[in-house]
C-alpha cells in the first residue's frame, strides 16, 4: 500500500510523536519509497520538527526544483537548514525510487537514492559535518509536506517509511531495502515504521503505535515491489493412522472432568 498526495489539494500526514520514537541524538536513519508526478517543483517527502525550537524544523528530505533529492538538518543556531547530502542523480516523474538517509554518531551523514532495477543510486562518499548540526528531541513528523511553512506539498506517492535510532549498518542491508525488503525486516534499533496503508484516518505507525492525522485527503494507491517478512515453508505432515482395534488410554490429566467451575 501507499498514499497518493495531490499538491494542489495540500495533502499530507501529520504525526505527534511518542517518547518511544523521539530521537535525541545521532545516529538516526530514515528510509522510504517515493514517486512523483510533477517535474521541476520542490516538494517535501519527510520533515521532523521540535515544537520547542526556533522555526521548529530539524530534519527534512525533499525534492528540489531541479528534481534532485536532498537531506537537510538544521544547525545549532536555528538558522536555515543545512544541506547535509544530495543525490547526484536527477530523478524523473512516474518512477518509483527508494531513499535511505542516515547520520552516524561521528557526524557523518549520507543519502542514497536508488531507482527500481537500477544500480545502487548515489554512491558518493558520506558528507562529514563536524559541527553546526545537532539532533534535539523531535516531537512532530510530517509526511508529504513542510509544516514549518505549510508548503511544499508532495505530488505523487509515498510508501514504506522506516525510522531507526541506529544506522542501517552496511550497504548490503541498505541495498536490501532498495530491492524491496520491507523495513520490518530490520528491527534492530527501529523506532518507527509507517507502511502508509492508506485505508484509515489516522494512518498508523505499526512499530511504535503513533498515528498520523490526514491533512486533507491523501488516498490509497498501489505500492512498489515490497517483500514482507513471512513464515514461509510451514509443512503439513499428516498424522499416522491409528489401528481400528487399538484403544489409547487417556493420560491422567485428561481423565478429570472437562468442565470446571
Amino acid at each position, binding site marked *: 500500500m501507499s498514499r497518493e498526495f495531490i499538491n494542489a489539494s495540500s495533502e499530507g500526514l501529520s504525526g505527534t510523536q511518542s517518547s518511544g520514537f523521539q530521537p535525541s541524538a545521532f545516529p538516526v536513519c530514515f528510509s522510504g519509497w517515493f514517486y512523483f508526478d510533477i517535474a521541476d517543483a520542490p516538494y517535501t517527502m519527510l520533515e521532523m520538527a521540535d515544537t520547542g525550537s526556533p522555526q521548529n524544523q530539524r530534519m527534512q528530505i525533499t525534492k528540489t526544483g531541479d528534481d534532485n533529492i536532498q537531506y537537510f538538518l538544521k544547525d545549532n543556531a536555528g538558522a536555515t537548514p543545512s544541506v547535509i547530502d544530495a543525490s547526484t542523480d536527477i530523478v524523473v516523474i512516474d518512477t518509483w525510487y527508494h531513499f535511505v538517509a542516515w547520520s552516524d554518531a561521528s557526524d557523518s551523514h549520507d543519502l542514497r537514492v536508488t531507482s527500481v532495477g537500477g544500480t545502487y543510486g548515489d554512491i558518493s562518499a558520506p558528507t562529514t559535518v563536524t559541527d553546526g548540526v545537532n539532533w534535539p528531541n523531535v516531537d512532530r513528523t510530517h509526511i508529504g509536506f513542510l509544516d514549518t511553512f505549510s508548503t511544499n506539498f508532495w505530488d505523487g506517492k509515498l510508501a514504506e517509511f522506516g525510522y531507526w535510532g541506529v544506522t542501517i549498518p552496511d550497504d548490503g542491508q541498505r541495498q536490501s531495502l532498495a530491492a*524491496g525488503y520491507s523495513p520490518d525486516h530490520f528491527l534492530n534499533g527501529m523506532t518507527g515504521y509507517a507502511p502508509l496503508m492508506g485505508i484509515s484516518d489516522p494512518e498508523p505507525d505499526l512499530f511504535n503505535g503513533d498515528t498520523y492525522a490526514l491533512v486533507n485527503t491523501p488516498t490509497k494507491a498501489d505500492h512498489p515491489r515490497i*517483500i*514482507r517478512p*513471512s513464515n514461509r515453508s510451514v509443512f*503439513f*505432515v499428516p498424522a499416522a493412522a491409528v489401528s481400528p482395534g487399538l484403544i489409547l488410554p487417556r493420560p491422567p490429566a485428561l481423565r478429570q472432568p472437562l468442565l470446571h467451575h
Partner: protein
Amino acid sequence: MASGDTLFVFIPKDNVPPSTGFATLDLITAATGFREVLDFIGSGGSADESAIFESVWPSHYDGGGIDVVIHYSTDNVSVGAVQWEVSVEVIQDQDDQDAGGQDFGTLTDITDTPSTATANILDITAAGVVTHANCGSPAVGDGMRLKVTRDHDHATNTDDAQLSKVVVTET
C-alpha cells in the same frame, strides 16, 4: 500417504514478487480488523500481474501431480469470470538459479465466476491440476516456486481480484 495430502498453504505475506508486473499487498477492512490480500488488477489494467511463492517439496510428498485451489474475492460487483494461471518451477541440486535458469512449467488455467455481485465475498476455485511433469518432475527435498498470475483481460471483469490463500494438495 499421498492423494489429498496438503503440501503447501501460501498466504499474501509469503509472496516474493517478481521485479515487474507484481500483485500488491492490500487490506480488506473487516469487522474483526483487517484481512490481508494480494491485489491483482482486472481488465481495466494494462498487463497481467503475478505473485511467486516458494518452498521445498516436503517429506510426505509422494511424487504425484498437484491440485491448486485459490481463495479469492473481488473488490467490486462484477460477476465476469476471473482466470488464474498457475505454473511451477522445480529447483534441484546444481541448478542455475539466475535469470536463464528460471523455467516455470506449462500454465494451468483456473477459471472461476464470482458467486455474487458483491465486493469482498470469498470464492474458492475448483482445483487446477498440474501434472508431475508440469511441476518439473520434482522429488522430496527439491526446491519449488509456484507462480500465480491473473489473466487481467480474460472476460470483462474489471474488478481487482484479491487473493487470500493458495492451497496445494497432492492429486
